[in-house]
């Protein structure tokens, strides 16, 4: 492979943002990915910091960050980089034609497909819950046959929310889909077509009136723009809100497509379906990483490397009996000696899970350390879910940490 300045390993949110930030500084970037990251099937909302370690909701995420322990990824990245990272992210979305709204200063609570609320910060405009807070009544639109989305369940939950209206109605749209199970992607593709949009609007109009606030699953088109949203708003003079749901949750797919096309515009070369298995090191520096296909190995030299391989979900971390490891560089992953201390036996207790915090310890420049604070390689940086010191599922910070650390590493690489 042609030499370049930076190799980013991993095509999830952290890797994409890192690649964009490095390319913005005119670095020659190659991004290597085994598969797609969680963002392609997730909700695409950028959670920043939803809960304190004790489980108390955080009202002002940015301010709260000052209180985090020094090994938390936000603390490692630093206050200034954190603020800049979110600015950079918002700018990327704007340039990609799918502007996000929100800020890290205040938490926003958004409805979910099971009728609960979840704290987040940055959202596509189509997910902004503000109209719901201002409404006296709302309509939940369901789609016949759609899996994992039950208007009654949503209404039962949202009625309990003090800030929300107490009157809800349901309208069921029939997309007339034969064949396999219907998921949100199927509906979104239907609404990508003009005939689908017309049929949907016509059916909705039997149950909604001008000025209504209308909740829909994440189905307003697969493309990262607000074309479907705007057409719906114009045709019905209603406000629409997309609710986050189970994978595939199309709102994340839109963000994924947007970021891939933005990094391509910035000249990043993408190598898909390639797994990095090892690194070539020389005297405290990494000189190349090696991909391993069914056919043979290939070497990718660069000046800097950003490890964005995710956690256990994506294979960035691997667990064995009594130990965990990072497979590319063989970096140390500290775990409790006794495996019984790895997890909270009550899986659905709502409590934090120790294993969710496993990952790489990094220095102030996001370089993985040997455990005693010293960087193992001077030119290897780690970002996103590979890092230790946070529990993204419990504290609700996954995409926020991915954006902040990805951006920070992209600005640090030589």
């Amino acid at each position: 492979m042609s030499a370049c300045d930076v190799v980013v390993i991993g095509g999830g949110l952290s890797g994409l943002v890192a690649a964009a930030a490095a390319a913005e500084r005119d670095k020659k970037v190659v991004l290597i990915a085994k598969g797609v990251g969680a963002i392609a099937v997730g909700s695409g909302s950028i959670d920043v910091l939803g809960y304190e370690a004790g489980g108390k909701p955080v009202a002002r995420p940015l301010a709260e960050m000052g209180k985090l322990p020094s090994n938390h990824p936000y603390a490692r990245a630093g206050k200034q980089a954190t603020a800049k990272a979110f600015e950079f992210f918002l700018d990327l979305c704007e340039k990609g034609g799918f502007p996000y709204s929100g800020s890290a200063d205040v938490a926003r609570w958004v409805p979910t497909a099971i009728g609960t609320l979840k704290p987040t910060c940055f959202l596509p405009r189509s997910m902004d819950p503000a109209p719901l807070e201002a409404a006296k009544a709302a309509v939940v639109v369901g789609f016949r046959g759609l899996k994992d989305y039950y208007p009654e369940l949503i209404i039962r939950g949202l009625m309990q929310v003090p800030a929300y209206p107490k009157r809800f109605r349901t309208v069921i749209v029939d997309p007339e889909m034969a064949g396999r199970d219907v998921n949100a992607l199927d509906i979104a593709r239907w609404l990508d077509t003009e005939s689908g949009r017309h049929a949907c609007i016509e059916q909705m109009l039997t149950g909604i009136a001008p000025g209504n606030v209308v909740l829909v699953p994440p189905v307003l088109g697969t493309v990262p723009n607000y074309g479907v949203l705007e057409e719906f708003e114009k045709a019905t003079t209603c406000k629409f809100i997309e609710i986050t749901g189970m994978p595939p949750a199309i709102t994340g797919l839109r963000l994924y497509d947007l970021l891939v096309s933005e990094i391509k515009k910035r000249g990043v070369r993408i190598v898909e379906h390639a797994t990095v298995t090892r690194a070539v090191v020389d005297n405290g520096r990494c000189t190349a990483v090696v991909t391993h296909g069914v056919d043979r190995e290939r070497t990718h030299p660069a000046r800097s490397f950003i490890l964005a391989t995710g956690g256990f979900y994506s294979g960035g971390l691997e667990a064995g009996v009594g130990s965990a490891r990072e497979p590319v560089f063989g970096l140390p992953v500290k775990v409790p000696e006794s495996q019984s201390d790895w997890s909270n036996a009550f899986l659905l207790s709502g409590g934090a899970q120790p294993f969710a915090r496993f990952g790489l310890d990094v220095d102030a420049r996001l370089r993985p350390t040997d455990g005693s604070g010293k960087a193992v390689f001077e030119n290897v940086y780690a970002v996103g879910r590979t890092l230790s010191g946070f529990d993204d599922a419990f504290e609700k910070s996954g995409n926020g940490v991915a954006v902040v650390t990805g951006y920070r590493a992209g600005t640090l690489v030589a």
Partner: protein
Amino acid sequence: MKGYLYDSDRCMACTSCTVVCPVAAATREFLGPKMVGPALSRFRRPALAPDLAADLCSNCKNCDISCPSGVPISTLNMLSKAEYYRHHRHRLRDWVLSHGQLMGNLATPFVPLSNLAIANPISRTMLGAFGFAGRMPLPAYVRKTFRKQFRALRQQSFPQKVVFFPGCYIDFYDPGVGLDFVAVMQANEYEVVVPRGLGCCGTPMVANGFPGAAERAVRRNVRALQEWTDAGVPVVACCTSCSLTLKQEQQELFDVPGAAELAARVYDATEFLLELRDRGKLKTDLKQLSGRYLYHAPCHLRDQGIGRPGFEMLGSLPGLEISDADAGCCGLSGSYGFKGDRYEVAQAVGDALFKKVRASGADAVISECGTCRHQITVATGAKTLHPISVMRRAFE
């Protein structure tokens, strides 16, 4: 055989493959990769009656490209198709489509009569009755196969050798691409070898449920290439489905001694040239070119884990303006889009690409895959080229 690759239990049901599958997007009759591949494979194990759920899969491999767990979904699909056809009869059409080499050997001596025989309205109707898509013309056979033309070629001899694997498409339909490859290598002081005994790579047989025939094809090719692979000579293909099969698919499906050693030497032509360029081994005094082109990356190239070397090479040629169509699968997938009952799906899959091509106003569309080029030309009327043909103009 790299049998460890079959582990369907690595699937964590994340739905990434479902999101990218172009056939699932085009038709609701296809259950999608997650269901047809890993999920159903678990049920297939206890020897239930074989099913045809995978029949709609085109083996385009977009699912494999997206999977974060490394599940070889498309290969699971091909295995289940093969299992079905072990117990059921094939359609004659599928036999014809998957035995392109034999058909080519039979038809080529009678060109142009054989083309007339396929293209005239009466036989088009008859082909339709056999299950071919009436609206999708089969590519026309050439009078002189690549191999025949190659044998008549006077090459300059150089100590550096490279083996060229033509494959059926270039041999019978598009020999110019093979000749362009020879010219580019000659300009860079390489001698091209085409060993006797090479045939179809086997991928059409895999895709149509003829694993036995595919395995025989693999064995023959491995044997024909052994002397060269033993000597460390690179084996290069201009067809991305051939190179993918030689590198990967044959190892995933069959246990053929020597296949791994061969795979380690196989290159896509543009991958090979880019590597030579990076090692400073290509001519640098290139001719000035001109023209505006649109590039389409074949799925079987994207699956190889080598990026887009052709796009990269073309971008560095002087005077060329090239942009990436970035519009997904063309829909044809080798033999898939020629089938009457798959034609609509194939056209729907390719629609985004066709729109990009029509809107681009480019002088030509460049793509490594012969059947992608055929599909694009038939659907849009656009002129199409293999990257090597453009490179020839710069190097010669």
